[in-house]
C-alpha cells in the first residue's frame, strides 16, 4: 500500500533522514519510536508531501507518486494526518472541527455523532475549543482523524497529554481501525502502550531505521533481570555470548538455545539476587528503546 524508497532529508548542516526505505500494507499499525528530534515528524511530512525530500520516492498502491497536484490530491483522498491541538480554531466547536474533516474526506457527517459518543466527548464537543483542556483537545484531534476515516492515517503524538483512561480508550479505537483494514502509523513515547496494538515498531536512529520489531510474530524469549553494573561485572564471564546488558541496568539472557535443565539452572542462579524481579519473555518496546537510545 505504501512504499518509501531511499528517502533522504538533509539540511546544510544536518542529516535528518538518510536513505530510508520502508514498505507497509493495509490492516497494519506501525509504531514509530525515537527520541525527540530524530526525524519522526519529518518522516510523516515526507509521507504526506508536506516536505519534499532531497532524494527518494513515496509510492502508494504501487503506482501513485507525488509528481503532480492531481496525483497528490488522489493520494490525499486516502491519507489523513493527526492535527496538532495547538492549531485548532478556538472559536469553533469540536463538532465543527469533526464535521470539517468528515466533509473533506467522507463527504458526509452522519458518522460524526457516533464517533464522539464512542470517545465519550458528548459533554463538551459542542462547546468552543477555547474552553477545552489539553486532554480534551487531544481527544478532539483523534476524533477528527477518525471522522476523516481514511485508509491511511499518520498519527504523530496521538497519546500526548492523555490520562490512563483516555489512552486506553484510544488504544481500543486504534485496534478497531486496524480490524477495518487501515494502515496507521503511530509515533508515540508511550512505549509499553505500543505493544498493545502495534503490529511492528520501527526505531529510527542516524536518519535510518535501525531496527524493526515485529510484535505479533513469535520472537526470541529472554530471562530478564535488573542488575547494577557491579553485579553485572561479577556475573558477566558466566553469561552466554549472545546475552544483552541494556542501559546499564537490564540483563537479558536468551533462552532459545537452552535446554530445560539449563533454564532451571539459570533461574536458580538469578534468584539469588534478592529484591529483583526476574521475568521471562520477549524484549518489549521499552527494552529495545533503552538498547538503542540509552547506551553510550
Amino acid at each position, binding site marked *: 500500500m505504501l512504499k518509501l524508497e531511499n528517502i533522504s532529508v538533509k*539540511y546544510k548542516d544536518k542529516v535528518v533522514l538518510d536513505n530510508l526505505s520502508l514498505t507497509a500494507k493495509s490492516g497494519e499499525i506501525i509504531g514509530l519510536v525515537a527520541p525527540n528530534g530524530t526525524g519522526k515528524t519529518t518522516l510523516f511530512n515526507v509521507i504526506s508531501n508536506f516536505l*519534499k525530500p*532531497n532524494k527518494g520516492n513515496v509510492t502508494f498502491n504501487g503506482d501513485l507518486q507525488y509528481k503532480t*497536484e492531481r496525483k497528490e490530491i*488522489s493520494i*490525499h483522498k486516502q491519507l489523513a*494526518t493527526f492535527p*496538532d491541538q495547538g492549531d485548532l480554531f478556538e472559536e469553533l466547536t469540536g463538532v465543527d472541527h469533526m464535521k470539517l474533516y468528515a*466533509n*473533506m474526506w467522507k463527504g458526509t457527517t452522519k458518522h460524526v455523532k457516533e464517533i464522539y459518543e464512542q470517545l465519550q466527548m458528548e459533554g463538551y464537543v459542542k462547546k468552543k475549543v477555547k474552553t477545552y483542556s489539553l486532554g480534551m483537545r487531544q481527544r478532539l484531534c483523534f476524533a477528527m482523524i477518525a471522522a476523516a476515516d481514511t485508509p491511511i492515517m499518520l498519527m504523530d503524538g496521538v497519546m500526548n497529554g492523555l490520562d490512563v483512561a483516555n489512552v486506553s480508550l484510544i488504544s481500543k479505537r486504534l485496534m478497531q481501525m486496524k480490524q477495518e483494514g487501515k494502515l496507521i502509523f503511530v509515533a508515540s513515547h508511550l512505549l509499553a502502550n505500543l505493544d498493545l496494538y502495534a503490529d511492528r515498531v520501527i526505531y529510527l536512529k542516524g536518519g535510518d531505521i535501525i531496527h524493526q520489531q515485529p510484535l505479533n510474530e513469535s520472537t526470541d524469549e529472554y530471562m530478564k533481570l535488573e542488575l547494577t553494573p557491579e553485579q553485572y561485572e561479577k556475573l558477566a564471564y558466566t553469561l552466554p555470548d549472545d546475552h544483552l546488558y541494556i542501559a546499564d541496568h537490564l540483563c537479558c539472557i536468551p533462552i532459545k538455545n537452552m535446554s530445560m535443565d539449563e533454564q532451571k539452572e539459570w533461574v536458580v542462579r538469578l534468584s539469588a539476587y534478592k529484591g529483583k524481579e526476574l521475568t521471562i519473555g520477549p524484549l518489549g518496546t521499552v527494552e529495545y528503546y533503552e538498547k538503542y537510545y540509552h547506551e553510550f
Partner: protein
Amino acid sequence: MFWKYTRFETKLLLKNRKSWFVAVFLLFFFMLFFMYYSQETPVPLDKKKAIERDTSYAVFEYLDLQRHDLPEVAEVYNYHTQIQSLLGMQTWFIGNGDDSEQYIENGLEINSLRLEVHELGNKGIPEHLIVPREEILKEDALLHYIKDNNLPIESDSFATNHYISNVLTMFSGLLFLVIVLISGNEMLVYEQRHQSVLRGFPLSFMQKVTSKVMIHFVYLYTFLLLGFTLGSTYVAKKFDAGEFSFPVLIYKNEDYIAISTGQYLVYIFLGLALATILILLLSILLNMLFRNAFANILIGLGIFLLPDIAMAAGFKATFLHPIKYIDIFKVLSGDLAIELGNSSIDYWNAMTTLGIITVLLIGVIYGINKFTYHRVPKEVPLEKAF
C-alpha cells in the same frame, strides 16, 4: 468538497472580528458621509449660473485693454459679448423666467460660441478665466442629454448627482483599496497558524483560492451595496435627491457623454466588482510571495502609489497607468485621463485592462503553484507553505 470547504471558510469569515469591523464600516460609511455632507448644502443651479455670469463679466476688463489694437481680440470680444448676453438670459430662465427649454438652447449656443473662442486661441483672455475645453464638452453633453430625454431643469435636480459624485470621489481609489486589502490580507497567511489542521485536504490549490476570493468578494460587495443603498435612502428622504434618471457625464473616446445616474451607478458598481476581484487576487499572490499579512497591505499600497511616485520623480511610465484604473470613479469622470495625460483612458479601456490583469494574476498564481511540484530540492528539502 469545494462547496463544503467554502461553507467552512464562510464560517471562519463570520467568526472573524476584522470582517465585522469592515462590514460595519461599509454599511455606515455612505450614510455618515451624507450626514456630514448635508451640513454643506449644494449650490443651487441658479446661484451657480449667477456666479458664472459674474465671473464671465470680469473677462471684459482684460479684453477691453487690447480689442482696439488687435483684431483677433476684437473678434473674441464680439463672441464674448454674445456669451455674456446668453448667460444673463440663462440666469433669468432658470430663475423667475422658468423656461427649461430656452435655458438649454441658450446653453448650447454658449458652448458653441466658447468653442469658437477656443479656435481663436482665447486671445486676450487670461489663463484663469478661460473655460477649459473639457468643461465645455461636458456641459454640452449634459444639455444634449437633458434635451433629448425631456428632463426638467430645476435648481435641486442635480442634488442626487452631487451627493453621489462626492461620496464616490471619497470612496473610490485609495480608501476602497485599503478596505479590500485589509479584508483580504490574511486569506492564505492565516492557514499558517492552523497548519496541521488545514494541510492535506484533498482539494486543489486553485479551488481553495477560488473559494476564498469568492467568499470575500460576496461579503465585501454585499455590504458595499447595502451601505450604498442605506446612504442613498437617507439622502433621498432627507433632501429629496432621489432623481436617478438625471444625467451624469462620463468620459468616453476622448469625449464626454451623458448617461442617466442609474446607468452610471451600474458602471461604477461593475467597475468596483472587477477591482475587488483583482485586489483580492493580488492579496492571494502577495500572501504566497511574502507570507505576511502586514506586508500585504504595505506592498499593495505601494503598488497603487507607484504611478504617483514615478510622476513626481519625472518619469513618464505609461506602463504603470493601469494600476490607477482601480479608481473607477476617476476613470469614468475623465479626471484620470487628464491627470496622467493619457486621453485613451476611458471606462471601456480600463475595464478591459483590469480584466486582462485579473486573468494574468490568476495565471501567475496558477503558475507559481504548479512550479512547486516541479521544483527539485537541491541543498535543502522543500517545504509546502500552503
